[in-house]
């Protein structure tokens, strides 16, 4: 018996390795983050008008776009800092409680955390989150298993550290 190859509707394309950089303004203590596709993390402090930005952390990660194999449309995900698994959040948090309930139905809850500028992160539009959900769900093999990715409706960027997101902090330390 031959097994027909499964044609997937969505594919990850334009995968770009790099670093998620987190920096803080010296006077206002405002935090922001961005993706840098440099070969090494850009650790430089720099001035921007009256602001003085200092790097606070860097994590290895990647950015990608998603291509619809039917229409050929490419959806960019440049604003995605990473995915946060509900179980990596505090047990007292709303996202943990919802994730725990969803888990009973074999649904694994993740939150799409966006990079943030001085005003905070921009919420990922629902249409893009739908594409992310389709991308990951159509690859699952475990019967009945589902992944549900939500935009950050919980305001988690104020409650979590970047270390809780599924990206690679401190990888040079294997302790």
């Amino acid at each position: 018996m031959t097994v027909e190859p499964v044609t997937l509707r969505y594919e990850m394309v334009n995968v770009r390795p790099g670093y998620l950089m987190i920096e803080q303004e010296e006077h206002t203590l405002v935090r922001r983050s961005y993706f840098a596709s440099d070969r090494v993390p850009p650790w430089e402090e720099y001035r921007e008008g009256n602001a003085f930005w200092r790097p606070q952390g860097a994590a290895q990660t990647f950015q990608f776009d998603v291509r619809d194999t039917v229409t050929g449309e490419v959806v960019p995900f440049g604003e995605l800092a990473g995915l946060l698994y509900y179980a990596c959040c505090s047990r007292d948090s709303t996202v943990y409680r919802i994730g725990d309930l969803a888990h009973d139905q074999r649904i694994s809850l993740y939150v799409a955390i966006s990079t943030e500028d001085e005003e905070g992160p921009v919420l990922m539009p629902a249409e893009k989150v739908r594409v992310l959900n389709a991308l990951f769900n159509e690859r699952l093999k475990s019967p009945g298993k589902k992944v549900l990715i939500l935009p950050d409706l919980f305001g988690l960027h104020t409650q979590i550290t970047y270390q809780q997101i599924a990206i690679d902090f401190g990888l040079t330390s294997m302790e």
Partner: protein
Amino acid sequence: MKVQELAERLELVAATKLFDRDVTGVYISDMVSDVIANAKAGDLLVTAQAHANVIAAANLVDTCAIVITQGKPLGEDVVKMAEKAEISVFTTALNRWQVATKLYEAGVR
């Protein structure tokens, strides 16, 4: 081949309950972002990382099990998270290359 049979052949030490599944491939990586981008559902994940986000990544891509190399101990919270996600986790004193060799010898291609 099933996870349990492979674990027995490689003399892996169970860190969690067993959730037996078919092993359809192998992915070796220490980067969770790499696992998310490149591992496939049904892959056995071999890694030296033993933190919670390894479970988060393995669960997202639906790996069949995880092998933690070089005898890294797992935290109790990581064990609970893996069991809740129904992902078997094993440990071994072998390094990643040695595990890869044994997987090949066991017929995993």
